[in-house]
């Protein structure tokens, strides 16, 4: 099902394409086409864009950035971003971290690894966070933890449901224990929001690992996942090194977690907005901008 009205082109589309092109097989000369990392077949970039960045041949979900996700899930022109300006400092004076932050800002066109704000999904008012993989692999330092905590606190104050899209390599080691503490801090914010009877829905995307898996990613009332997303506490390489054996195919993929009972459903991008909308309706989340006047 295609609904063109669902997305608006990201402002930084050109840059985004440029980045993607660099990462693709250099043997493919044209930015008109991209090869699918799963089935290796070529697709027109325009076809991919019109298909939620999902391979039309095999259904592989290409990695996309947070702004693209927002455009896919939020009703047009309803997103109001909060705390966009927050950026990290190198409080522990960790060697090389300043440079990494500067590179990540350039590379991602974002100030940090998560975007937070409010918006509407099928007219239902929600607060949400969307993590950004191109900013240091969505790793969680103090700013990421703080932004997620702030949006949970905002949602609690305004009695809004929370929607969270996760993608992360885990806690950001350059911030030492202050990064680890964000797992406790965000979990506290989730707990308070939950205790007030409010809905928290997570969508786990590829890859969600480490300290994010072991905190707010797994704390949703409802946990959805994108097809084939890697969802892990310890990454596959760490496990292979620890136990010195190869891991079975499909291990730690969304389908495996569904089978083991750790996610509620696997939802392809084409029906993601519809699914979230239905879940919001089923929880009696009000429509329109009248309530609380916060949007």
């Amino acid at each position, binding site marked *: 099902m295609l609904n063109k009205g669902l997305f608006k082109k990201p402002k930084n589309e050109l840059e985004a394409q440029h980045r993607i092109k660099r990462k693709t097989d250099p043997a493919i000369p044209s930015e008109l086409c991209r090869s699918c990392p799963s089935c290796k077949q070529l697709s027109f970039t325009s076809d991919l864009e019109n298909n939620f960045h999902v391979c039309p041949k095999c259904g592989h979900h290409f990695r996309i950035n947070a702004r693209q996700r927002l455009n896919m899930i939020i009703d047009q022109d309803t997103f109001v971003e909060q*705390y966009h300006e*927050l950026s*990290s*400092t190198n409080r*522990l004076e*960790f*060697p*090389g971290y300043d440079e990494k932050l500067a590179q990540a800002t350039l590379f991602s066109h974002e100030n940090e690894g998560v975007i937070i704000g409010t918006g509407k999904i099928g007219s239902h008012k929600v607060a949400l966070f969307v993590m950004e993989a191109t900013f240091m692999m969505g790793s969680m*330092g*103090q*700013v990421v*933890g*703080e932004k997620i*905590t*702030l949006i949970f606190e905002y949602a609690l104050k305004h009695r809004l449901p929370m929607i969270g899209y996760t993608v992360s390599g885990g*806690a950001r*080691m*350059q*911030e*030492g*224990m*202050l*990064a*680890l*503490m*964000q*797992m*406790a*801090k965000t*979990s*506290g914010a*989730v*707990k*308070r929001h*939950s*205790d007030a009877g409010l809905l928290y829905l997570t969508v786990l995307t590829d890859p969600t690992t*480490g*300290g994010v*898996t*072991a*905190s*707010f*990613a*797994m*704390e949703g009332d409802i946990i959805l996942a994108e097809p084939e997303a890697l*969802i*892990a*506490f*310890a990454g596959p390489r*760490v*496990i292979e090194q*620890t*136990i010195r054996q190869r*891991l079975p195919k499909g*291990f*730690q993929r969304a389908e495996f977690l569904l089978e*083991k*009972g*750790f996610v509620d459903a696997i939802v392809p991008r084409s029906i993601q907005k519809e699914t979230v909308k239905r879940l919001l309706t089923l929880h009696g989340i009000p429509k329109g901008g009248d309530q609380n006047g916060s949007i």
Partner: protein
Amino acid sequence: MEAYKRVALARKKTRPTGQDFIDNLFTDFIELHGDRCFGDDPAMITGLGMLMDMPVTVIAQERGKTTKSRVKRNFGSSHPEGYRKALRQMKLAEKFNRPIVCLIDTSGAFCGIGAEERGQGHAIANNLMEMMGLKVPILSIVIGEGGSGGALALGVADEVWMLENAIYSVISPEGCASILWKDASKTKEAANCLKLTAQNLLELQVVDKIISENHRDFKNVYRELKIGLYKCFQKNQALDHQQLTEYRYQRFRKYGAIETITE
């Protein structure tokens, strides 16, 4: 002392383990097993004991002492059932209004097929969230190695204390060196950068108190802990539930709070 020396001391095989602390801090200790779901995790000891005249719930990570017991204890690395067992005991502590002591000593939550299959991430996440809301006093003490999320899963407390030669880190210095610098020889440098010593963490307010090891005379350590725990629990038991959980929330809320990151 350089950070890596502390790492070596924290991991030293002769260092007292969770069971030693239990034996020396509490009387009438009874171990209670199992997560009521999957199994019993020997890397995590849970039970009840008397802290002087005060019944308390005790949760302790245990590395083992001999080669045989270390294997049995999985070197102190818990599976999800260890964390679930701990939470089960904490919930019972809440029901019966007992304070909770957590003794942290692990290189990390176990990384393996079974651990992932049974939801290691979920088990830790659930502990963090539930501990935040527990209506009884909780005190966590890092007695040896505090390895990342697997340590934090027992570390959401009203106060967190650390022994002088204990370490507490977001990642092991070895892991940090190999991931960031692809160079295992930089482990010592990584240990320095990670700010994992008790003194570093006191300065960062990650821990509230350092327990001096008095040249590794643990008799004094146990004595100081016993009195300290008792006083802390007495003080926190006087708080009502809301004050207590608010205080705990704010304790963790302060790390990277917007006022500190926009300075």
